[in-house]
């Protein structure tokens, strides 16, 4: 097992890893309608934001220029830990509309604790030409960002790395180790291949074995993947699964994944003791999307807490995961494949 615990020393405080960074949609069309969770979920003082969206939302950006802080804008405490990624998924695939230096300047202005370098995610097609071009481009952006990242900037810089094969991931990280100065690496483009568990775990393992530095995985922290990521030694991950699932009226529960609420007839008491469900009825949750979002986030945190408990109490993590995945054939296969890979059997 590659699970590990570390402490990240960041400008806005220390954070114990592994850690989930809930994706906030601040700056997006609906601005930030993520329900309040910082402060209410004590082990989640974290947020993942899209720096480009905020920069492009003129009124918000103007307020930030005039002295309003990002955390005020998000209505979270000033000690909230913020990871600002470049918003790569929104870029035109031919190239971003912003330079690495500009992006760094925006991230710095947002007072983010962690900066992710500009990246263009890979497509599932065009393996040879286009994806290799994007891989090279992302490396170039990362190196340019590293050159601009001042030594007196206490925020961490994570290089965004993309690749659909272990060699490319390893090769990219080794290349960046030689040519840049990064505090960690953030592995991207996995959400497009998330259903290919075997490939995804191989890529994460390739990254994990290529560096001992912090490893973040972009956009892959759903309730099913979460234990796998921890098992594979991922230090942090971001996810919007709690929002997306709530949008589909999916009620997340550790060990059971998601269940659409319209498939549940009636329950006097919900199966989850979280602060959202503990005092409410199923019908109350059913009609309030915000409640469902918050519950879903609690579910993900519960999953994370359970894993930490297993590891801290010196229990057999693999036995726990065997149990965890036993009811779902797909994830069970994925975990078995991951276990073999971790043990270098394949």
């Amino acid at each position, binding site marked *: 097992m590659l699970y590990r615990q570390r402490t990240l020393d960041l400008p806005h405080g220390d954070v114990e890893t592994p850690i989930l960074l809930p994706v906030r949609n601040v700056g997006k069309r609906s601005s930030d309608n993520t329900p309040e969770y910082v402060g209410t979920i004590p082990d989640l003082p974290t947020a993942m934001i899209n720096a480009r969206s905020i920069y492009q939302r003129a009124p918000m950006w103007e307020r930030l220029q005039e002295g309003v802080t990002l955390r005020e804008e998000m209505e979270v405490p000033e000690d909230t830990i913020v990871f600002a990624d470049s918003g790569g998924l929104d870029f035109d695939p031919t190239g971003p509309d912003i330079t690495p230096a500009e992006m760094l300047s925006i991230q710095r202005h947002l007072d983010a604790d962690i900066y992710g370098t500009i990246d263009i995610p890979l497509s599932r097609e065009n*393996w*040879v*030409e286009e994806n*290799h*071009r994007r*891989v*090279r481009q992302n*490396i170039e952006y990362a190196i340019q960002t590293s050159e601009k990242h001042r030594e007196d900037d206490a925020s961490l810089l994570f290089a965004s790395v993309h690749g659909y*094969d*272990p*060699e*490319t991931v*390893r*090769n*990219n*990280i*080794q*290349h*960046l*180790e*030689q040519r840049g100065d990064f505090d960690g690496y953030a592995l991207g483009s996995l959400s497009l291949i998330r259903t290919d568990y075997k*490939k995804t775990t*191989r890529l994460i393992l390739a990254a994990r074995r290529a560096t001992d530095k912090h490893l973040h995985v972009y956009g892959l922290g759903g309730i099913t993947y979460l234990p796998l990521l921890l098992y594979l030694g991922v230090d942090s991950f971001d996810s919007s699964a709690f929002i997306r699932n709530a949008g589909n009226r999916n009620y997340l529960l550790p060990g059971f994944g998601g269940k659409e609420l319209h498939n549940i007839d009636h329950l006097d008491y919900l199966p989850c003791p979280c602060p959202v469900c503990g005092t409410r009825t199923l019908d109350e949750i059913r009609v309030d999307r915000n409640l469902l979002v918050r519950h879903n986030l609690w579910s993900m945190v519960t999953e994370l807490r359970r894993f930490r408990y297993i590891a801290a109490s010196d229990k057999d993590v693999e036995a726990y995961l065997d149990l965890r995945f036993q009811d779902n054939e797909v994830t069970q296969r994925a975990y078995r494949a991951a276990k073999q890979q971790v043990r270098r059997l394949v």
Partner: protein
Amino acid sequence: MTQHGFTISDQKRDYSRFGLEENPFPYSPVPDDEPDIYCGQEHVTEAVSDTVSTVLSTGKSKHLVVTGKYGNGKSHTLKYTRSLLRDREDVVVGYVAQPGTGFLDIYHEFMADLGFDYVQQVAYELLADVARNETEYNPIGSAAIKSLIDEGEILLSELVPPAIKRLSETAKFADFARAVVHLVYEDTNLYAWQWLTAEGIRYEQRKELEIHSALDDDTMAVRAFTSMKNLLIELGYDAVFVFIDEFESIARLSTKDEQTTLNSLRHLMDQNNSGLCLLFGCAPEVWQDVMSEYHAFSERIGREVALQPLTAEQVYELVEQYLNPVRNSGKQGIAPFTKETLEFVLQQSQGNIRQVLAICSRILDAALRQEQKTIGVAVAEDVIESV
């Protein structure tokens, strides 16, 4: 261990009474993969040497058929020549034990004989070549480029697209180019290898490699072989040698399949007028038929050379060559055999090398059991009578 008349023992036999460390003759004379001994017939060694040397010195393709009855040394000749060429770093040699049911099988056997590791090494050599052109680095060989990639000095993404483009231009076969380059990726290299060896892969696997065609008929196999040869020549190898043994087995094919196989080989020769040497081992009667019925193919083979039954002198030489490496007495020549004994062996074997070796092997053991010091004709006669 003795039981019901059987006596089974692993006790080592002591051949020191003959001044030998062991019985050097094979009990079942099949050619070694890497033969040390070649007791050749001068006209055969000359013909093989001439063919191989011409290809190496001129770069032009040249082909040869070695004919001879079963047991006269065709396989041994091909394998011995292969072992000589394998020591050279500037050529590539593939051995095809028999032609199977068509050129697709020949191609499959050729690639399988080269082996995954070797062809993967060729893929890295291609990347090294590209790296020399596209980057400031000057990697020579597969280990150097692999190390540069592993250490992150060179980006794989800088090399792969130009490598595929260049190989596609050289090979005129984009799918082949993609398969070769995929050999460096651990996730896909087995699929790529399966495609390259014409073992067949599923559509989804092909899609993952971005390969559009199936390599499943003679025409595609000729194309893939030519691509492989062109790649090797481009990488600086002087020639590709293909040794096709037991060519007579094409006579067992249907007329149509036989014609198709020979046509494919003809196309292969036509498409590769440089850098290719095909060496066939074939029974003479089948070769006669091919000569008379398939002119288009046989005319493209430059020469035929026939292995003849051994003469007495050649038998002496053969036996001496087998005995010398295991002698511990400093003796030379054919001892403990006598000339008379070997002449008897020659007569019994009718000059067939396989027979000569098998009989010598049995005679030596019989003489040991009879506690002889020299092996006279009487021992040989006993052995022949007992068979």
